[in-house]
């Protein structure tokens, strides 16, 4: 019973930390995928008096593609309302319209910077960024992502605190054994073998538990998310990589905490 209690005292904070990390991973994926989706759809319209010969002319901005909007298409809609001579004149006087696709979806601030940058180019008359269209959902997702990061950091700190407390208890329980082994020339790591063993067992248990939980959540995401939101979320893949991250976190946090406390124990003794 005592062993079980100390096992859970160590495993529970680790699992809570890993679950928060999973939520962070999922939200990150959703935001990232949504970013890709809106970046593909999103473009800036730029109006210029002269044609551009190269994309490089728009310096400092990561551009995926620039498409020129054909004048014929623009004139097509008003052709019937104008005389031939007016159409000719319009054709000559109409500026060049460009549709600029960016490599990544910018924040509102970045978008304003891009707009200012573009407007400084000579002969550019106007730049339309259509900021409000995409920013509402995107900002909400960014807000959720930030909240999750803060939540994860808080959980991480609390977990480290609880984990270190449990490791300290184990050091205290094993202090006699540790000192006997050290008297016989055993290193601190060797004499702390039982602590390392229970830590590894707890970490592996946590990894298995959280990986199953993550797998089940991803495959049954419709149970947790409303259908209208679900439509916005592309399919989440690359779970293997996420499980690897979980494994790294589940092993590194207890190990680093243990090493810190082991050094402290050595200094104190």
């Amino acid at each position, binding site marked *: 019973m005592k062993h079980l209690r100390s096992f859970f005292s160590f495993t529970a904070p680790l699992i809570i930390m890993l679950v928060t990390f999973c939520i962070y991973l999922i939200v990150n994926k959703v935001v990232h995928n949504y970013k890709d989706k809106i970046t593909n759809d999103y473009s800036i319209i730029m109006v210029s008096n002269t044609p551009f010969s190269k994309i490089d002319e728009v310096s400092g901005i990561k551009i995926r593609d620039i498409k020129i909007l054909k004048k014929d298409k623009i004139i097509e809609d008003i052709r019937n309302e104008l005389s031939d001579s007016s159409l000719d004149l319009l054709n000559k006087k109409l500026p060049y319209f460009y549709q600029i696709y960016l490599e990544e979806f910018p924040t509102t601030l970045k978008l304003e910077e891009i707009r200012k940058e573009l407007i400084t180019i000579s002969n550019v008359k106007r730049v339309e960024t259509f900021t409000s269209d995409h920013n509402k959902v995107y900002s909400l997702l960014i807000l959720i992502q930030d909240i999750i990061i803060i939540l994860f950091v808080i959980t991480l700190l609390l977990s480290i605190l609880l984990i270190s407390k449990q490791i300290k208890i184990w050091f205290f329980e094993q202090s006699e*054994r540790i000192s006997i*082994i050290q008297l*016989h*020339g055993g290193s601190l790591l060797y004499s702390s073998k039982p602590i390392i063993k229970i830590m590894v067992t707890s970490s592996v248990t946590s990894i298995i538990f959280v990986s199953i939980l993550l797998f089940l959540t991803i495959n049954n995401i419709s149970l947790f998310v409303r259908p209208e939101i679900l439509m916005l979320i592309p399919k989440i893949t690359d779970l293997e990589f996420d499980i690897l991250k979980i494994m790294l976190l589940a092993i590194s946090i207890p190990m680093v905490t243990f090493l810190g406390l082991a050094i402290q124990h050595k200094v104190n003794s």
Partner: protein
Amino acid sequence: MILATNITLTYDNKKNIIENGNFHIHEKEFVFISGSSGSGKSTLLKSLYGELKAKTGHLFVNKIDLTKKDPLKLLKLRKNLGIVFQDYKLIKDYTVEENILLPLKLHNYDDKVSNNQVKNLLNHVQLTHKAKAYPDELSGGEQQRVSMARALAHNPALILADEPTGNLDEYSASVIWKLLRDANKLLGITVVVVTHTIPKDFLLKYRRFNIDDGVIYEAS
């Protein structure tokens, strides 16, 4: 084997427990360190296995200078020591067998060699029937015999014993004295025993250092 020159021992730089101690213990010697309670016998022994660093002077044990801070050399020294304590210092969740195996494991002995060695030692200390028992299931005398077996397991060059018979009845104490004498006589191990009760038949045979008021001197 052990050379101390002008060593001063103290806890937390308070009162000096040993002052300017000088002594030399040769290889394969059997030596007693005696003195009244609180005279600093155990403190001196602590310095011999590196638990307490001398404030001044030089202390060489098995050619390792213990006045220098070198954790790796200290581990090396301890691996080649056999230590016996008054309170046995057996690991409670290890069986008798596992306790004796400890120094062999620390030396990475082969399993087969280790098991044979443990078998021989259990036979030597007459505890073969208690191999699977835990320390709490043994009497004080038996626990000290396990402690002796552990100290002998890896054929150390030096055995340090701190009041090895302090908690034992007369019979159990005589068994431990015999084991210590055999270790020295038959195996050529240097033995340093801290005690305030030296058996009569040992008294005239071996050298004895006495500690009185922080001063170490060889008693005649």
